[in-house]
C-alpha cells in the first residue's frame, strides 16, 4: 500500500514539474537572452544564463527605439477609457433590463444574446468599412468604440449580479423619495463593485493582449499599442534577437505584476466571466 502511494506521488509531482518546465522554459530562455550582448547571444547557447544581469541595454533600445514607451502610453489610455465605458454601459443596460419590464425588453436582451454568437474576427471585413466611413480609421477611437460596441460579456456579468441585489433596496429608497437615477448611482453601482472588478479583469486582459483591432484599425506608428509596437520588431530587429527578447519581456512584465498582485481576483473573474 505504501509503495503504491509513493509511486503515485512520484507520478503526480513528476508530471506537475514537467508541466511547470513546459510553462516556464519558453519564457526563461527569452528572459536570459534579453540580458545578453549581441556577441554573447551568438556565442552562447539559449539555456546559458547571461554573464551580466545588469546589462539593460536591450531594454533601453526596445523601450525607446522600439516605440514601446509610446505603446504603453496608448495602451493605458485605451484601457482606461474602454474600461470606464464598459462599466457604465454594462451596468446601465443591466440595471434597465433587470429592474424594468417593458414592451421590447425581452427583444433587447435577445439582441445582446444573439450578438455573442458573432465571432469578432470574421466580421472585420465589413466592420472595417463602417469604421472607415465614420472617419475613425487611424484614430484611437476606432479601438475604443469597437471595444465598447462589441463587449457583451460585461453586460452578462452585470445582469447575473443584478439578480442578487434585492429589489426591496430600490423600494425602500423610493419610499424616501429617491429617483431612479439616484438608485442607480447610489445603490446599484456601489453594490456592483465585485462585478466591476470582474469586468475590469476580463476586459483588461482582453484589451491589453488584443492584436487584430489595433493592427487593422490603427496602423499609424504614433498610435501603436503594446501588441502592435512589439509586432513591428520583426523586420528591423530580425537578426537582433536579444532586442526582440527584451521587447517580449517588457510586454510580459506588467502582466506578471498584475497576476502576482491580483491572483485571487483573476481566478474568480475568469471563472465567473466564462459562465454565460
Amino acid at each position, binding site marked *: 500500500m505504501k509503495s503504491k502511494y509513493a509511486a503515485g506521488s512520484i507520478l*503526480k509531482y513528476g*508530471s*506537475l514539474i514537467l*508541466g*511547470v518546465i513546459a*510553462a*516556464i522554459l*519558453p*519564457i526563461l*530562455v*527569452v528572459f536570459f*537572452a534579453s540580458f545578453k550582448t549581441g556577441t554573447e547571444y551568438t556565442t552562447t*547557447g*539559449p*539555456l546559458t544564463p547571461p554573464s551580466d544581469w545588469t546589462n539593460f541595454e536591450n531594454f533601453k533600445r526596445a523601450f525607446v527605439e522600439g516605440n514601446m514607451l509610446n505603446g504603453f502610453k496608448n495602451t493605458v489610455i485605451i484601457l482606461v477609457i474602454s474600461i470606464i465605458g464598459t462599466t457604465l*454601459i454594462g451596468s446601465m*443596460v443591466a*440595471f*434597465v433590463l433587470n429592474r424594468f419590464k417593458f414592451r421590447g425588453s425581452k427583444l433587447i436582451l435577445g*439582441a445582446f444574446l444573439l*450578438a455573442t*454568437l*458573432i*465571432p469578432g474576427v*470574421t*466580421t*472585420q*471585413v*465589413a*466592420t*472595417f*468599412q*463602417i469604421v472607415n466611413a465614420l472617419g475613425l480609421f487611424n484614430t484611437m477611437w476606432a479601438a475604443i*468604440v*469597437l471595444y*465598447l*460596441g462589441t463587449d457583451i460579456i460585461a*453586460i452578462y456579468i452585470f445582469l447575473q449580479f443584478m439578480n442578487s441585489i434585492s429589489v426591496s433596496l430600490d423600494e425602500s429608497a423610493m419610499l424616501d423619495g429617491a*429617483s*431612479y437615477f439616484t438608485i*442607480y448611482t447610489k445603490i446599484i453601482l456601489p453594490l456592483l463593485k465585485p462585478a466591476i472588478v470582474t469586468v475590469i479583469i476580463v476586459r483588461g*486582459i482582453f484589451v491589453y*493582449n488584443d*492584436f*487584430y483591432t489595433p493592427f487593422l484599425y490603427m496602423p499609424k506608428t504614433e498610435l501603436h499599442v503594446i501588441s*502592435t509596437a*512589439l*509586432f513591428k*520588431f*520583426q523586420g528591423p530587429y530580425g537578426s537582433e*534577437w536579444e532586442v*526582440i*527578447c527584451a521587447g*517580449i519581456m517588457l*510586454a510580459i512584465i506588467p*502582466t506578471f505584476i498584475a*497576476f502576482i498582485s491580483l491572483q485571487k481576483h483573476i*481566478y474568480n473573474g475568469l*471563472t465567473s466571466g*466564462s459562465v454565460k
Partner: protein
Amino acid sequence: MFSKLSYRTQRIIIIVSFLIVPLTLLAIFSFLPVANMFWYSVTDWNGYSEKEFVGLENYITVFTDPEYFRVFGVSLYYFFATFVQMGIALYFATILSFKVRFKNFFKGVIFFPYLLNGVAIGFMFLFFFRPDGALDTVLQMIGLGDFAMHWLGNPDIINVSLAGTSIWRYMGFNFIIFLGAISSISGEIYEAAEIDGANRWQQFRYIIMPSIRIIISLNLVLAISGALSAFEIPYIMTGGANGSATFVIQTVDTAFKYGKIGLASAMAVILLFIVIIVTVLQKRFFSEED
C-alpha cells in the same frame, strides 16, 4: 430636479437614456457589419468599385478553388490540438483538486501563460523553435537530438508546431475553469466515496466526470469555433506562409491584402454560419438533457 418627476415619467426617461448609447453601438458594430457582410458577399466589390451583383459566385469559388478550401484542412490541426489541450487541462485540474504540496505555485505557473500578450507569445515561440534554439538544445540534452528539425521551416511539421504553441497559450484557461468546477464539488462526496473504498480513478470517473460534463462539452464547442477562427498565433509567427494559413488568415488577406472584399465576405459568412450552427446544436443538445 429629476426626482420631482413621477416614477412613470422617470422610468421612460431612464429606459431611453440608458439604452440609447449601448443599443446604437450594438447596432452599428455588431449587427450592421453582419448585414453588410451578407450584402458584400454576393457582389464583386473590391473596396472602391461599384458593387456589382454576382449571385453565389463567391461562395462557389470558396468551395471549389483548392486555394481557398484547402485551408479548412489546417483547422484540423487546431481542432485536434484542442482535445490534447483539454486533456492536459483536465489532468492537471484533477490532480490539483486533491491534496498537493505547493498547490498555489503549481496552479499559478500552469495558468500564467494564458494571460500573456499574443504577440509576445508568438515571438517567444519563434525564438523557441529557432534552429539550435531552446527546443533543439533541450532535445539534445535529453538525448533526442536526432529529432531536432526546422520546426517552422518544414511544411509537414509547421502546423503541429503552431498548434502546439496554441496549446501552450490556451491550456491555462481550460485548466482554471475545470479546476473551479471540480472544486465546487462538496468534499463530503469524496469522503463518502472513500469510505466505500473508491480509489482515485473511480472518484474521477464517477464523481468528477459527471459533475463537470457540461463544462467540458461547453468548452468543446468553444474549441470547435476556436479551431476554425485560429488566427493570432499563426499570423504573428508565420503570416500564413509555408502552408500554415488558416481560414481567418485567408479571409483577412483576401480582404485587406488583395482587396477582394466580396470574396472575403463570403468566406466570413461561411465561418459565421458554421459557428452559429455549432453553438445552436450545443444549446439544443444540452437544454434537452437537463
